[in-house]
């Protein structure tokens, strides 16, 4: 085993520059794979985060069209509805318009009911409900901006001016929630709707969308239909769907990210296949007399096939692992820098798993042809070429 391993490594190091370039191309491809995987996940994170027992109701025409506030009470009255809360996109940013984040004016006492995955420390909720300018933020957001309970922060809205025409809103951090599980989004904030509603210059008594938590997930479709039926033929018709369906539809507004990622990766891997496959074939072709000598010594076809496959697998797996590690580092760095825009940007275990599977497949596919040729080598002909 040691001798064969030395042969495999020695053969790879025979032309160092060639191996280095091949390795570099594999590494770059897998860095790209990791980055695109992270990006794809960021666009679909909402779908993963979606609760099975939550429905989202929006204006039938468009997500940006408001709904009347009165709809919330009417939905709460339906059978099978456990609770309902409304949310409005505030268009928040801190100091710099590039530092955007998600802030939703809502009924704060409803948040814990609608989103049980968010936990607020004891005592903070009371302070939050007692303060009209109180703000509840995620732990990740608090860490990013260095905010703590009691801080007064000026937050700008890119949409809603106050009665005095100012776009600057004063809030006081009153609660910092943590999300249970790695998937929960802690880069968002919730503010008191009444304070927002009374202070804004336009759009009074309207909300962006309504989230309904239902008693039994299996009734989701029926209740969604019932909600839309209730508001049918009114000036503001609605469109209700499960939260997962709504998030998927939201992500689809950016285009089919998954398909784009797959197409880019297919191009990358096809090119990589040609480069690595050609390099492996060339490397084995150059060693034809040596392979013939090994056969002469009694090495069987299977052993030669295994040796050549081991070489291609070594390149693909080393390159793949380094590429995935580098890609993970890039994604983690980007996740911090772009947390306002892509709160779901992260490397998932599934992406890493697929990456390793692709590296394995790459090694096998690129080594298959040269390995088959090595196995089928005619000793007499190969030795005569010498």
């Amino acid at each position, binding site marked *: 085993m040691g*001798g064969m391993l*030395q042969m495999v490594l020695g053969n790879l190091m*025979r032309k160092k520059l060639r191996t280095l370039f091949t390795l570099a191309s594999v590494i770059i491809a897998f860095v790209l794979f990791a980055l695109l995987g992270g990006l794809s996940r960021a666009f679909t994170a909402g779908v993963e985060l979606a609760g099975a027992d939550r429905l989202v109701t929006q204006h039938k025409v468009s997500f940006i069209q408001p709904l009347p506030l009165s709809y919330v009470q009417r939905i709460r009255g339906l059978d099978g509805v456990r609770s309902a809360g409304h949310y409005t996109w505030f268009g928040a940013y801190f100091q710099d318009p590039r530092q955007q984040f998600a802030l939703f004016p809502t009924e704060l006492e409803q948040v814990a009911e609608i989103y049980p995955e968010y936990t607020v420390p004891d005592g903070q909720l009371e302070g939050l409900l007692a303060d009209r300018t109180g703000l509840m933020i995620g732990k990740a957001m608090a860490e990013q901006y260095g905010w703590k309970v009691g801080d007064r922060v000026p937050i700008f809205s890119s949409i809603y001016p106050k009665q005095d025409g100012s776009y600057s809103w004063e809030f006081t951090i009153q609660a910092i929630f943590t999300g249970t599980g790695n998937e929960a989004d802690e880069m968002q904030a919730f503010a008191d709707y009444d304070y927002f509603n009374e202070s804004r210059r336009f759009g009074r008594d309207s909300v962006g969308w309504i989230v309904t938590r239902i008693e039994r997930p299996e009734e989701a479709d029926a209740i969604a239909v019932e909600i839309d039926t209730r508001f049918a033929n009114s000036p503001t018709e609605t469109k209700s769907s499960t939260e997962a369906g709504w998030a998927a539809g939201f992500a689809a507004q950016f285009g089919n990210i998954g398909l784009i990622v797959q197409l880019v990766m297919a191009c990358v891997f096809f090119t990589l296949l040609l480069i690595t496959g050609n390099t492996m074939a060339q490397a084995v072709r150059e060693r034809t007399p*040596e392979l013939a*000598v090994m056969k002469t*010594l009694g090495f069987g076809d299977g052993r030669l096939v295994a040796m050549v496959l081991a070489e291609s697998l070594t390149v693909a797996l080393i390159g793949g692992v380094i590429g995935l590690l580098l890609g993970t580092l890039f994604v983690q760095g980007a996740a911090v820098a772009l947390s306002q825009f892509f709160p779901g940007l992260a490397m998932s275990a599934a992406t890493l798993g697929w990456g390793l599977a692709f590296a394995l497949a790459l090694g096998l596919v690129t080594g298959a042809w040269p390995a088959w040729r090595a196995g089928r080598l005619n000793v*007499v002909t190969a030795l005569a070429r010498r």
Partner: protein
Amino acid sequence: MNEAHASAAGQAIVRVAGVTKQYRKGRQSVEVLHGVDLDIADGEFCALMGPSGSGKTTLLNLIGGLDQPDRGEIDVAGQRIDRMSSRELARWRAAHVGFIFQFYNLMPVLTAQRNVELPLLLKRMSARERRERARLALEIVGLADRAGHRPGELSGGQQQRVAIARAIVSDPSLLLADEPTGDLDRDTANEILDLLQTLNQRHGKTILMVTHDAAAAERASRQVQLDKGRILDASGAG
């Protein structure tokens, strides 16, 4: 005559009977060997001579189990190798034959020690035992002090000694040498021939050596002349 020679020198280790071999060149079929008969006795050092294209290497390849005859029988150490599958032949070669080539054919990425160990990778043997046996083989060819060198760091003669150590390390019954001195100067060639003679006389190895060189052939105990695919003369010599 061949049988008489084999019984005089010892039991025949190689028996070639009525062997014919054809090769295809494009649409044409060329018969390289025409019903060759040859016996080589156990412990014999036999030189196979003849002009280029006479079929020497083809016969050597057939006896070494690298190729199969179209007709005839080949028996080596009591086994009919002309009936073996390629898988059986690979195993048989590993156990019974040591090959020595004109251009040494060492693995450039391995040290002399590892090159010699190569055939032992096919045997059930511990790494330590492999190392010891390779070291012994290198001592026999006088290159124990070069064990850690790669082929590129050795002279032609030294490389051929490593190749001979590789050929004998698994203690085969038969050594097949194809122009082993063809790429060496006269002095180095003599050293290699001395080594082959020592392996034959002191270690009892049976050797079949293909050569153009009359001086090299004289070192053998018997010379066999091959011309146009037929054995012309198989007289005792040396």
